[in-house]
């Protein structure tokens, strides 16, 4: 049994009597202790997928149309709210892109870590404080006793993200969901945080679902990759296989568009056009109108994820050979 299995998940946002599907039949699985990268560009549905695992999408407007999200075999979508609250922050932790907006500005660092321990472990006072200090030390924060009394605005971006990670991990979750955890950070601080996540994952034996737009980060951090485009998973493969031999033209296009692959100043490979917005994604493959390999059927028939060897799955009628 996988630690996490998302099966045929479809999500819509209802707005003014109009329903726009933002995730369509997404399926992927994550084994204990492994790292899965969910990659894609803005609007592809990767963040809402992660939020739906945590059941953090406000409903309305969000609505699950179909599918299951199995965590340790239990369907999170059907759990009563109280039981979901007990899992969230305990067995599943989450870290967001912008720690300034996800930390509470009027509560001290210590209070925010201890609150998690109080909620899930019933710990208070010196005991909670001791564990909070230990966790801050664990995430590489020096002088943790002093940091406990500080507020988010007194910390640098890198320190805030370390505090976010401390909050997410203080209950030693089995799964950490990290949504663009380093996107708002400078590159030298990003290197620190990625290094920290790798170390903590090893030490705590947790699985990591890493949501990112950065293929370099995927290559460095992930065992498996799922590529999302316009609400659908278009390719799924072990990281090494994906980077060496992408099958979906969108994955191939993304990889080729990176500036370091061509001689300096030369023409970069591009993907023409832009991602179609929800509600305008047609009946066929939603990448068809930007795709150089499109066949007549691509415009009308939607390809399903099909295996192509080596655990590699692509949703494409004419995959890259």
């Amino acid at each position, binding site marked *: 049994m996988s630690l996490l299995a998302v099966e045929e998940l479809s999500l819509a946002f209802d707005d003014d009597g109009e329903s726009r599907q933002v995730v369509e039949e997404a399926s992927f699985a994550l084994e204990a202790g492994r790292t899965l990268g969910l990659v894609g*560009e*803005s609007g592809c549905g990767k963040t809402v997928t992660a939020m739906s695992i945590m059941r953090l999408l406000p409903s309305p407007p969000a609505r699950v149309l179909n599918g299951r999200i199995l965590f340790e075999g239990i369907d999170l979508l059907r759990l009563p709210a109280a039981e979901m609250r007990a899992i969230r922050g305990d067995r599943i932790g989450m870290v967001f892109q912008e720690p300034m907006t996800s930390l509470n500005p009027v509560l001290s660092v210590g209070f925010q870590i201890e609150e998690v321990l109080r909620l899930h472990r019933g710990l208070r006072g010196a005991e909670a404080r001791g564990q909070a200090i230990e966790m801050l030390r664990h995430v590489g924060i020096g002088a943790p006793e002093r940091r406990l009394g500080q507020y988010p605005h007194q910390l*640098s*971006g*890198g*320190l805030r993200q370390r505090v976010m990670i401390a909050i997410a991990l203080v209950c030693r979750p089995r799964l950490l969901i990290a949504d663009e955890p380093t996107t708002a950070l*400078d*590159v*030298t*601080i*990003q*290197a*620190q945080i*990625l*290094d920290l996540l790798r170390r903590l994952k090893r030490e705590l034996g947790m699985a990591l679902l890493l949501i990112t*737009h*950065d*293929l*370099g*980060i*995927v*290559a*460095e951090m992930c065992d498996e990759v799922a590529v999302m485009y316009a609400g659908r998973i278009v390719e799924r493969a072990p990281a090494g296989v994906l*980077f060496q031999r992408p099958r979906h033209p969108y994955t191939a*296009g*993304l*990889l080729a*568009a*990176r*500036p*370091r*692959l*061509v001689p*300096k*100043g030369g*023409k*970069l*490979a*591009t*993907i*023409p056009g*832009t*991602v179609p917005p929800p509600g305008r994604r047609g009946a066929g493959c939603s990448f068809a109108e930007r795709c150089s390999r499109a066949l007549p059927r691509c415009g009308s028939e939607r390809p399903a994820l099909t295996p192509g060897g080596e655990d590699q799955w692509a949703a494409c009628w004419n995959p890259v050979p």
Partner: protein
Amino acid sequence: MGRLLEPGAVSRPILEVEAVAKHFPGKGGRLLRAVENVSLALAPGETLGIVGESGSGKSTLGRLMLGLHKPTAGRVRFEGVDLASLSPAALRRLRRHMQPVFQDPYASLDPRFTVGASIAEPLAIHRIGDAAQRRRRVAELLDIVGLEPDAARRYPHEFSGGQRQRIGIARAIAPEPKLIVADEPVSALDVSIQSQILNLLIDLKSRLSLSYVFISHDLAVVEHISDRVAVMYLGQVVELAETAALYKRALHPYTRALISAIPEPEPARRRERIILSGDAPNPEEPPPGCPFHPRCPEVMPRCRTDPPPRAELGSRASPHLAVCHLHGDPGGR
């Protein structure tokens, strides 16, 4: 410091920055030294990349180059003319030749103006052409940046991020400038759109004989587009060299750490990662000696006390500046 001020040595620089500083009033009477003693020059047709992390002063330097900030010390010269010597009206006239491109064109486009009106605005400001000529010019500009003619009648919110950056670029090139200072022009864009905009910028440069200052935190993007690269740390240029030399043989430990920190999908290109400890210091309280010394993996005792020397290494044809105690003595070489 002579050689670095004379790139190519044949043509006069289009832009010269000479010992420029910009200080802002900071908290509690302290001084925020956003830019400190920066000297560099840009040859016509050249692209100079400026990289640095937040707080490095790269955007302030860009604004100084455009005459949008007055330097606290030093000089900025455009085609030999000291910007500080110009009257406000003369500076405005000169700005026609030096145009900015920003990270978020949405913030710099007036949402109530049609795209056509926004692109024509710099033409009106600089009194270029009559109404009919400006309309024709807008159509021509839209075509150059790859937008449909009917874009002129639409509003900024109707466009995607990449299309809005095309509008921002059309507006920048409208008055036929010689220099573009682009500050993080592709940072807000997705990878597939980023490459479209970079291709457009590279294409326009040769087509319109432009010179670029390209400011970015993204070292891979800067490597692709720049002829030379300046690395900034805490308000100072700590290394400046031709792009290939800088990425192959960086001399400053900070540059080496920055380059090693780029997440790299190509296993063959992956290098040993240098992970710096701590954050960049507060620019209001720069450390004594070398500003990088508290994080430097190669720190020596004198780095804590003495300001680092400007070592001019490399060859005459390809000078390589490193401001670091590891290289050269205070007198240069």
